[in-house]
């Protein structure tokens, strides 16, 4: 059995007994000491007064909106931070949403239909998208096998030389660019090469075709 808590240690712990942040055994020990020590009991009262006084409601109202506006302007004026690390972490939790997964499955089915009809070139991807961006693509959208652990997603991307640049929470579709492009937008040829590298990996479930890949090259 432990010796009872001494006066000195109890004294040091009083601020957290006063602010309610001592837990379990330590709290019981400090309380037991305070019960039999008039100095600590008096000091505890002073500590509680400090808490009450510093937490008492403000006479000033702080309006966050103007400050936030300034900050958002500042963020807008700067280049977006790299979102690489978190995207990978996000993958772990991103395999649940049915919406895009369903869409990807649908798209794959359409692609297979086209293949059977013989209207699709063998080297083309086995899918099409219903909506296609009009502008030249700068990002490649991919999805992975749902059961793929986060570490393996990172490995697939690294092996293919891809860097994650987009991916909203709740979605399992990632926007990637070639890792070596830096801040400059990736060219179509670079994206196509990246798509080809990713396609070789069986763990990649879906890749959005580039707009130009749907038609033969001029």
């Amino acid at each position, binding site marked *: 059995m432990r010796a009872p808590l001494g006066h000195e240690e109890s*004294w*040091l*712990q009083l*601020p*957290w007994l*006063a*602010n*309610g*942040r*001592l837990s379990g055994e330590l709290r019981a020990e400090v309380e037991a000491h305070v019960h039999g020590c008039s100095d600590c009991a*008096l*000091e505890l*009262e*002073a*500590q509680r*007064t*400090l*808490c*009450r*006084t*510093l*937490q*008492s*409601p*403000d*006479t*000033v109202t*702080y309006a*966050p909106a103007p*400050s*936030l506006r*300034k*900050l*958002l302007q*500042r*963020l807008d004026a700067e280049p*977006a*931070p790299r*979102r*690489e*690390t*978190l*995207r990978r*972490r*996000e993958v772990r*939790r991103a395999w649940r949403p049915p919406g895009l997964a369903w869409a990807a499955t649908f798209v794959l089915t359409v692609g297979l239909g086209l293949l059977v009809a013989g209207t699709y070139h063998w080297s083309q991807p086995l899918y099409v998208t219903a909506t296609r961006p009009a502008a030249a693509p700068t990002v490649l959208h991919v999805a992975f096998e749902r059961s793929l652990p986060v570490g393996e997603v990172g490995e697939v991307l690294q092996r293919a030389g891809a860097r994650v640049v*987009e*991916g*909203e*929470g709740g979605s399992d579709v990632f926007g990637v660019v070639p890792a070596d492009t830096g801040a400059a937008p990736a060219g179509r040829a670079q994206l196509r090469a990246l798509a080809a590298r990713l396609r070789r990996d069986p763990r990649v479930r879906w890749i959005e075709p580039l707009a130009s890949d749907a038609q033969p090259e001029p």
Partner: protein
Amino acid sequence: MTEATYRGTATVAREMELIRRVAAGDRRAFEELYHLYHRRMARFLTRLTHRYDVAEEVINDTFWVVWRKAGDFRGESAPSTWILGIAYRKARSAFRANARRPEENLEVLPDVLTHETPATGAELRDWLGQALDALPVEQRMAVQLCYELGHSCEEIAAIMNCPVNTVKTRLFHARAKLQRLLPQLAEPRTGTAP
């Protein structure tokens, strides 16, 4: 307890989720997180520096880091510990650059601020504000983190990036000084309504 003090597991989980969304570039989540922290940080920092413009600058510098580094947050500490740790570093620099130096205050402060019993909580708060000014900045921040924001000893150590024994020592000295300046703190009272 007021909203400024320690918040429960559900709040921590909610803030974790907000940081996760901020990490994904979600502006709405960022704004929500900003609103959650603005009030208590504004009060904490204004009390510390006596200048709202400095407080605002520290808050925005802090959240600028939050926006950029949310992806590095591993959830090993509570979100508030992480955010206030950033704010602490920013506040310390801002304080050194902008605020009155405690040493200057020491020269003008008497041994005891007042022997009068404060009539109201607001009066006591004013006295306490003056007494806090007499403390070195590290002690002051420890005091505010403990009594005003309701952090545990371990959380304060994480925020101030120091050992828990240093936190206890800082508070020990701060308490002794506050007690000397404001002996009324130890007088039993029934309430301190403003």
